[in-house]
């Protein structure tokens, strides 16, 4: 799973999400089959079950709210389906993210014609998230060293924003200084090998098969 081309995994995920979302709400066997497919993916990728499930549970408050409303309006079957569809979809997305390094994932999305601007934003976000959160931690530590608690938090967030803004300026200048003209040249094109094709074909067959059979 980890070694497969990001594009194969992204397309497989899209297929899976589509299949799960258009599955008839009353067809529980189909949901079991889709769940089994995911379980197989988890097993093949050797992902630790408990942490993955714990992450999916982040979705629960949102999903449960909608399910509860649906239940109360007298559609218990649909409510259950909402729960199942959302959790399966979340789990599937997690499998993709957990088995694909972020850079490969973004590159895969890029070559699948996701707008470049979005990719760049995600790339920069990932790159500077750590730098900015570290800066935030330093500021918090400095505030605490001077005996400050929460009352200055709003101001600190403002300063952090201003600093990030300045940093963005600095980064842009550094890019210009090295000849940036507004277009990122992609460096390495990933290879879509026959193993990737086989992976995609098998996953697609399983998903479509479940859809047709159940």
């Amino acid at each position, binding site marked *: 799973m980890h070694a497969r081309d990001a594009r194969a995994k992204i397309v497989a995920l899209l297929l899976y999400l589509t299949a799960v979302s258009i599955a008839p709400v009353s067809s529980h066997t189909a949901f079991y089959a889709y769940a089994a497919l995911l379980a197989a993916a988890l097993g093949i990728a050797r992902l630790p079950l408990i942490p993955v499930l714990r992450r999916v549970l982040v979705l629960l408050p949102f999903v449960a709210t909608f399910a509860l409303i649906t239940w109360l309006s007298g559609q218990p079957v649909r409510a259950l389906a909402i729960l199942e569809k959302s959790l399966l979809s979340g789990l599937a997305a997690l499998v993709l993210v957990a088995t694909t390094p972020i850079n490969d994932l973004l590159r895969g999305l890029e070559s699948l014609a996701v707008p470049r601007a979005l990719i760049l934003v995600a790339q920069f976000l990932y*790159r500077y998230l750590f730098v900015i959160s570290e800066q935030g931690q330093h500021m918090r530590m400095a505030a605490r060293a001077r005996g400050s608690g929460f009352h200055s938090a709003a101001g600190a967030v403002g300063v952090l924003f201003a600093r990030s803004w300045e940093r963005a300026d600095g980064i842009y200048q550094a890019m210009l200084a090295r000849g940036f003209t507004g277009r990122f040249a992609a460096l390495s094109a990933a290879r879509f090998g026959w193993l990737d094709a086989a992976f995609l074909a098998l996953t697609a067959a399983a998903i479509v098969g479940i859809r047709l059979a159940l």
Partner: protein
Amino acid sequence: MNVVQVRGLRYKYPDGTQALDGIDFDLAEGECVALLGANGSGKTTFVLHLNGLLEGQGSIEICGMPLNRRTAAAIRTKIGLVFQEADEQLFMPTVLEDVAFGPLNLGLSHEQALARARKALEQVAMGSVMHKAPYHLSAGEKRRVALAGVLAMDPQVLVLDEPTTSLDPPAQRDLIRLLRALPQAKLLVTHDLAFAEALASRAVFFDHGRVAGQGAVRQIVAQFDWTSNA
């Protein structure tokens, strides 16, 4: 021949501060000059003019080419600017991609850009970290990689803004050795006098956006009482 020639450069910040107030400056081929002066005396503002990142009044010639909007792109390949904040300079996901960023912008093919990036990383002895994320490097390593990113563009002039900041003494020593071995003309913006003295044959002293004096590093240090010895 002068690789950098600046005449009467003036620049006012949008808030009205006169940051540069008539700067004349020359840098000869292969020469290494230290730019000294107080915080806020206009040193960084000055170097940002050298490749057109800031535009003031006056004339700037780089390798005989007058700097203007049309030549800025070409001049950015001649002047390699290493920024004070290495984190701002290293923005690509991996070290190798970051160093290849400049060559790719020059229009080189992927193979050529990668070859140049590898060579530049070898030059700064950072070949072993090329697949790492810049975030995971130490301050000294970041500085070296930032320098490699500039060397990969094969510039004729290196401009380094506060290159020794946050480097431990061995890393500073390594940087001095590394810079000594590079043939390009160099302009070092620095507060680090030992560093300036080890490398620069001449110092230029900035004060309130003007050149207040120039000469041998030792002489300038004495003239402006520019020492931290209490």
